């Protein structure tokens, strides 16, 4: 009697593992940058190429860094959410315009609205590599000390904003 349970137990364990495997998204790779300082960069601004932008200018603020591009179809999906967040003044949002032509990027913002206080122009994608970007859009939550607290890979959704971003931003602003 006891013996007949062994194959059943093995089967159950296997099912549990396979079930967990099915619910994982292999495209979401945990970032090693979590809870580490946001990599420094100095890039020209998208709208004013003679001015630079660097993350250390934003010390003391909780802010979002959103990686976007005019060629990125998924960016369009999340864009209204960013515009709405900017409208409500929830958190300063900065853009990293990733491997994009300046004119194309600016035209895209004119057409779809510009939620960014500033966008950095990462033409060759070098800063993107420093941030471990592999699938645009990506969104980083960076705290007052310049530490990356959260990373969203792919489009943000209303659920992510409600359940994760808003509570986290609130907590970080109070901390």
């Amino acid at each position, binding site marked *: 009697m006891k013996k007949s349970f062994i194959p059943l137990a093995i089967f159950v364990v296997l099912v549990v593992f396979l079930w967990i495997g099915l619910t994982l998204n292999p495209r979401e790779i945990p970032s090693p940058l979590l809870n580490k300082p946001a990599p420094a960069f100095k890039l020209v601004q998208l709208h004013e190429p003679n001015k630079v932008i660097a993350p250390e200018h934003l010390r003391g603020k909780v802010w979002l860094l959103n990686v976007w591009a005019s060629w990125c179809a*998924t960016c369009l999906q999340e864009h209204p959410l960013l515009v709405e967040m900017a409208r409500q003044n929830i958190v300063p949002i900065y853009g990293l315009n990733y491997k994009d032509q300046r004119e194309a990027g600016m035209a895209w913002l004119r057409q779809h609205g510009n939620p960014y206080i500033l966008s950095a122009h990462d033409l060759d994608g070098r800063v993107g590599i420093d941030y471990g970007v*592999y699938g645009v859009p990506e969104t980083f939550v960076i705290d007052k000390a310049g530490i990356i607290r959260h990373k969203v890979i792919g489009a943000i959704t209303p659920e992510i904003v409600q359940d994760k971003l808003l509570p986290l931003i609130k907590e970080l602003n109070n901390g």
Partner: protein
Amino acid sequence: MVNQLLLSLLLALSFSLAHAGEAKPTNDDPVLEKRVLEVSENLRCLVCQNQTIADSNAELAVDLRNQVREKLKAGQSEDEILKYMVARYGDFVLFNPQMKSSTWLLWFGPLLMLAGGAWVLIITLRQRRKLQQQVPVLSAAEHVQAESLLAEIKGQKNDGQDDGQKNIKDAS
């Protein structure tokens, strides 16, 4: 979701049609290019996850290969370059997982399974041999009884055969 999937599939297809084959060296220095490919073969392409960045022509893979080339030119070792990539993309970027406490199960799991299987096999074989060796010893009385039973069965069989033969004869 489905549309997205279809779109990316189509894109991937058109892409692979346009650029079939392995990534081609773009530099004139064949020694350097060989090194770039060697290092790139240890790095996973994060966009097309079952390929190395040496196999892939995805834009990110091309960028990362360029990084590898630049760093090799600057005299960095393969180890330094791999560390640089892991700092940005995590252990997942390594095609060969590192040997460390969190990957022991990955490395030795199959061996453990093999050992477990061998153990079950040995136990089963031993038990079977024991059963074969323990041929029940019959007492004299049991022998007599067994023989009479066997004789009875034999008798029945013979009867049956006789009947059969008779039937065949009748039929002919």
